[in-house]
C-alpha cells in the first residue's frame, strides 16, 4: 500500500511539464485576476467636443480628466465624426458642451451637456455615463456654492466587507474553487482513465490490493497537491492583495479539505464512466470547467441569471463552496452560518463515492 | 520454402545498404558500436539480437528517422546524414508498434499511405487489389481495422509498407505477438517480396526465423558479433540450430 502511494507520487512529480503547470497555474491566475481582471473603469479614453470653450467648460473638462476614470483620447472636431471614431473603437464616450455654455448658465441658469457613449459594451457605457454625470453634479454644487437645496437628505453609504470595492475580493474565492476543482477532479479522472487506457489498471485490479486501497492511493497525491495550491493562493492573496481572513483559518482549511474530497470523488466518478483520456478530458472540460466558472457566482452573480440557470446552479458544487469561502474569509462568520452549504457538499461527496463504488463493483464482476 | 538459395540476389550494381563504422550514442550510452556491414540487392537480411541490443536504433538510422553520432551509411546510394528525404522515397518501413489507423478501413489505410508516397489513384487501386489478393483478404477491403484480428493486421501493415514498391523494406520485429501459423505465412510473404527484387531488412528475436534469411547478423550489446548465412554460422559454431548459435554468442561475452 505504501509503495503504491509512493509510485503515484513519482508518476506525478517526475512529469516536470505537468508540475510546472500545476504549481505555476495558480500563481499566474491569482496574479492575473488580482492585477489585471477588473470591472473598474480606469483611464477610459474620451473625447470632449467643446463648442463653447469658456472657463466653465474648461473647468468641468479638467475635473473629468483628472478624476482618474478618464483620459483624453482622439480628438473629435464635429458631431459628424463621432460615428467614425466610435467605429475605430478608440473612444468610449464623447462629451458635448453646447455653444455659450457659461453665458447660458449665468443668464438662464440653464446649460446643456450631452453625453454620447459607445454602448457596444453596455456595462462600461453605463458606468462611464454615471461617473461623468456624478462629476458634473459635483461641480455644479461647487459652482453654486450658496445654492443649498431647501430640503436636504444626506445619505451615508457604507460598503460592507469590502470598503475599497476591490475586484480581487470577489475573484479570489472563485480562483481557489476553480483550481481545486480542476486539479482534484480533472487530474484524477484523467490519471485513472490513462491507467485504463494503458492497461495498467488491469494489473492493479488483479493485484491483492483492495479497490478502496487503489482509489486512495491514486487520490492521495492529488489531495496534497490541491491543498498546497489552496494554501499558496491564500498566502498570495493575503500578502499581495491584502485580502483578509476574518474568520477561523482552521475552519477555512477544513472546509477546503471537504471540498477537495468532493472534487476527487467527482473525478473518480468521471473516470469510471469514461474509457479514454480524451473522453475524460472532454467530460471534465465541459462538465466541470464551464459550470465552475460560469454557474458558481465566481465572476457573474447568480441572482442575475434566468431562473432555469439559477436552478441548475444548485447542483454545482462550486457554488456552495464559494459561498462558504466568502462567508469565512470576508464576513468572518462561523460554522453556524454555513452548516447548510457544508452539508450539501458533504452530501455530494457521498453521492459520488457511492456511485463510483457501484460502478467499480460492476466492472469487477 | 527455400532457404539459403541465393539465386535472386544480384550484386551487379554494388550493395544497396552500406554501413561503415556506424556509431550511435545516447549520452554516454553506446547503442550502436562501430557497425560494419553491407546488404545486397534482393537479399533477405536478418538483424538479430536480444531485446535492447540496439537493433531498432540501427534500423531507425537507416530509415532516416534518426541521425548517427559518427560513421557512414548509404541506403540505395543516399547518405543518411544529408539525404534522408531521398532515402525515404526508396524505402518501406513497418514499425514494431502497429501503425495503421484503427479507425479507418483497410482500403482507406492503403489509399492514405499510397497517397503520401505519391502514387496515382489508379496505381493505388491496382496495388491494393494485388496485395489483398495475395493475402486472400479482398473481402475485408471495406472493414474498419479495429474489427480485424491482429495476425491479419500485421500482414496488412506489411503490404502497406511495400505498396509503393520500394527498393528496400525495413521490418522491425514484424512477427511480435503473432501465432506460429501466421508467422510462417508472414515469412512466405517476405520471400515473395524478395523475389520481386525488393531487399528485405528484418529484425527479430525469434531465432528460428533466422533460418529463413539469406544472411543474418547477430548483435550483442550494440556490436555485431557474427555475420554470415545461417548454414555457415551453424557450421562455424558447431550448433544444431540458430538458437544454439545465438546462445553461444550471447554467453561468450
Amino acid at each position, binding site marked *: 500500500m505504501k509503495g503504491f502511494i509512493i509510485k503515484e507520487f513519482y508518476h506525478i512529480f517526475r512529469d516536470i511539464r505537468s508540475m510546472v503547470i500545476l504549481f505555476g497555474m495558480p500563481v499566474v491566475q491569482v496574479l492575473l485576476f488580482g492585477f489585471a481582471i477588473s470591472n*473598474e473603469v480606469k483611464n477610459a479614453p474620451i473625447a470632449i467636443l467643446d463648442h463653447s470653450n469658456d472657463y466653465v467648460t474648461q473647468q468641468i473638462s479638467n475635473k473629468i480628466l483628472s478624476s482618474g476614470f478618464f483620459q483624453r483620447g482622439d480628438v473629435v472636431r464635429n458631431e459628424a465624426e463621432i460615428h467614425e471614431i466610435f467605429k475605430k473603437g478608440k473612444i468610449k464616450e464623447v462629451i458635448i458642451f453646447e455653444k455659450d455654455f457659461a453665458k447660458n448658465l449665468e443668464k438662464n441658469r440653464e446649460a446643456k451637456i450631452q453625453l454620447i457613449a459607445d454602448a457596444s459594451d453596455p456595462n462600461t457605457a453605463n458606468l462611464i455615463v454615471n461617473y461623468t454625470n456624478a462629476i458634473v453634479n459635483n461641480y455644479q454644487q461647487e459652482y453654486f456654492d450658496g445654492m443649498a437645496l431647501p430640503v436636504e437628505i444626506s445619505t451615508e453609504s457604507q460598503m460592507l466587507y469590502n470598503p475599497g470595492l476591490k475586484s480581487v475580493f470577489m475573484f479570489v474565492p472563485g480562483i481557489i474553487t476553480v483550481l481545486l476543482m480542476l486539479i482534484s477532479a480533472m487530474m484524477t479522472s484523467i490519471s485513472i482513465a490513462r491507467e485504463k487506457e494503458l492497461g495498467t489498471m488491469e494489473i492493479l485490479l488483479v493485484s491483492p490490493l483492495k479497490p478502496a486501497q487503489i482509489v486512495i492511493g491514486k487520490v492521495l497525491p492529488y489531495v496534497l497537491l490541491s491543498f498546497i495550491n489552496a494554501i499558496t493562493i491564500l498566502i498570495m492573496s493575503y500578502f499581495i492583495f491584502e485580502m483578509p481572513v476574518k474568520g477561523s483559518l482552521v475552519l477555512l482549511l477544513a472546509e477546503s479539505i471537504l471540498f477537495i474530497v468532493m472534487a476527487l470523488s467527482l473525478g473518480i466518478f468521471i473516470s469510471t464512466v469514461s474509457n479514454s483520456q480524451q473522453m475524460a478530458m472532454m467530460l471534465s472540460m465541459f462538465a466541470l470547467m464551464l459550470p465552475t466558472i460560469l454557474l458558481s457566482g465566481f465572476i457573474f452573480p447568480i*441572482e442575475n441569471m434566468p431562473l432555469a440557470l439559477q436552478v441548475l446552479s444548485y447542483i454545482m458544487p462550486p457554488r456552495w463552496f464559494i459561498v462558504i469561502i466568502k462567508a469565512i474569509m470576508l464576513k468572518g462568520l462561523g460554522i453556524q452560518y454555513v452548516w447548510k452549504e457544508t452539508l450539501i457538499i458533504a452530501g455530494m461527496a457521498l453521492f459520488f463515492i457511492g456511485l463510483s463504488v457501484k460502478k467499480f463493483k460492476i466492472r469487477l464482476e | 520454402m527455400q532457404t539459403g538459395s541465393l539465386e535472386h540476389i544480384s550484386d551487379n550494381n554494388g550493395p544497396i545498404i552500406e554501413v561503415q563504422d556506424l556509431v550511435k550514442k545516447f549520452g554516454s550510452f553506446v547503442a550502436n558500436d562501430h557497425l560494419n556491414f553491407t546488404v545486397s540487392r534482393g537479399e533477405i537480411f536478418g538483424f538479430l539480437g536480444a531485446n535492447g541490443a540496439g537493433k531498432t536504433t540501427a534500423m531507425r538510422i537507416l530509415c532516416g528517422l534518426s541521425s548517427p553520432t559518427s560513421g557512414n551509411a548509404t541506403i540505395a546510394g543516399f547518405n543518411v546524414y544529408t539525404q534522408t528525404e531521398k532515402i525515404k522515397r526508396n524505402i518501406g518501413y513497418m514499425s514494431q508498434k502497429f501503425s495503421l489507423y484503427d479507425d479507418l478501413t483497410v482500403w482507406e489505410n492503403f489509399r492514405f499511405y499510397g497517397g503520401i508516397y505519391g502514387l496515382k489513384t489508379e496505381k493505388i487501386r491496382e496495388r491494393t487489389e494485388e496485395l489483398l489478393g495475395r493475402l486472400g483478404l479482398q473481402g475485408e477491403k471495406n472493414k474498419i481495422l479495429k474489427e480485424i484480428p491482429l495476425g491479419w493486421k500485421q500482414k496488412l501493415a506489411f503490404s502497406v509498407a511495400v505498396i509503393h514498391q520500394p527498393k528496400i523494406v525495413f521490418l522491425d520485429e514484424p512477427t511480435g505477438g503473432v501465432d506460429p501459423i501466421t508467422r510462417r505465412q508472414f515469412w512466405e510473404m517476405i520471400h515473395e517480396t524478395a523475389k520481386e527484387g525488393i531487399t528485405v531488412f528484418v529484425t527479430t528475436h525469434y531465432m528460428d526465423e533466422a533460418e529463413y534469411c539469406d544472411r543474418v547478423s547477430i548483435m550483442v550489446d550494440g556490436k555485431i558479433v557474427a555475420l554470415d548465412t545461417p548454414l555457415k554460422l551453424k557450421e562455424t559454431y558447431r550448433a544444431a540450430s540458430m538458437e544454439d548459435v545465438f546462445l553461444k554468442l550471447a554467453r561468450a561475452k
Partner: protein
Amino acid sequence: MRTIRFILQKEFRQIFRNKTMLPVIFVIPIIQLLILAFAVTFEIRNINLVVVDQDHTTTSRALISKFKAPKFYTLKSYLPNYDQAAELLKKGQAHQVLVIPNGFERDIVKDSKASVKLVTNAIDGSAAAIMNAYGNGIIMDFNQELVVESMGGQDFKQPMQVSYSYWFNPELNYTTYMVPGILALLVTIIGMFLSSMNVVREKEIGTIEQINVSPIRKYQFVIGKLLPFWLIALFELAFGLTLARIIFSIPMVGSVPLVFLVAAVYLFAVLGIGLFLSTLANTQQQAMFLAWFFAVVFIMMSGLFTPVESMPYWAQQLNMINPIAYFIKMMRMILLKGSGFADIARDLMAVLIYAIVALSMAVWRYRKVS
C-alpha cells in the same frame, strides 16, 4: 497538392467516424452559447432590500414606497433594528439595508436636513457600486420631490442639464455585447483543443513513425493537419452566427463576409499554436494541459468578460500577443458597430503576422528526424 489531398481525406474520415466528435462539434456549441449568453451578465436585475424604519412616519413611508417602484428592487422585509438586518446580510439573504433613523421626519420639518444610512454588501465591488448608485439615486429623487413640495409645487430644474444617449446598443442589452465574444471563444476552443490533441495522438498510437519514414514534406503534413480543423471551426462560426441571429437576434451591422475573413486569418493563428503545442507534448495529457493553460490565460485577458481598458497598462501591453483579444475586439466592432475593413486593418494585420509566426513555428518544431 495531391499529398495534401490524401491527408485531408484521411483526417475527415477519422473525424466523422469518431462518435464522440460529432456531439462535440454540434451539440456543445449550442449549449455553450445558451448557457454563456444567459449566464454572463453584470446587469443587476434584483436587489434584495431590507428596511429598518425607526421613524414610522408618513415621510419615512413615502421614502420606502419609492424603493418599491423599480422592478429590480425587492423589499425583503422590515426589521426593527440594524443588528437584525445585518444578520440577513451575513446570511446572504439581503444585498442592501436602508436605515431610516428615528426623528427623520422631524429633522426635515425642523432643520430641512436629515440623513439616512444605506449599507451594501460589497464583496462584489462593481455590483455594489451600481447598487449603491441606484439607492442613492432613489433617495435623491425623493429629495427633489420634497424640494418641489417645499417650493409650493414650482418646477425645479438642475442648472446643468446632462442628457445622454447610448449608441449601438440603446437598451444596454448585455447579451448583444456578449454573443459575438462567445462565438469567438467557441471557435477558439474547438480549434485549439482539437488541433493540439491531434498530432500527439498520432505520436501516442505510433502512426507518426510510419508517416515520418515516408517522403512527405513537413509543410504538407502541417497543412493537411490544419485544414480540416480550419474548415470545421469556420463551419462552427457559421452555425453559431445563425443560432445567435435566431435565438438572440443580435445585430449584424457590419459585413458578414468581413467577419469570416477575420475568422479565417485568426484560425490559422490559433491552429498554428495548437499544432505547435502538439509537437512539444509527448502525451495527450500534456497537450491538454498546455492548451488549457494558454487558453485560460488568453481568454481571461482577452476582454471577453471584463473590459481591456480596465486593465493596468502592462496587462494591456501583454494583450499585444494575445490573439483572442484581437479577434474578440474585431468581432464586436464589425457585428455591433459596423466597422469596416479600414477600421480593423491594423488588428487584422497583427493577427496575420501572428498566424505566419505560429505556423512557421509549428512547421519548424515538427521533426521528421529525432
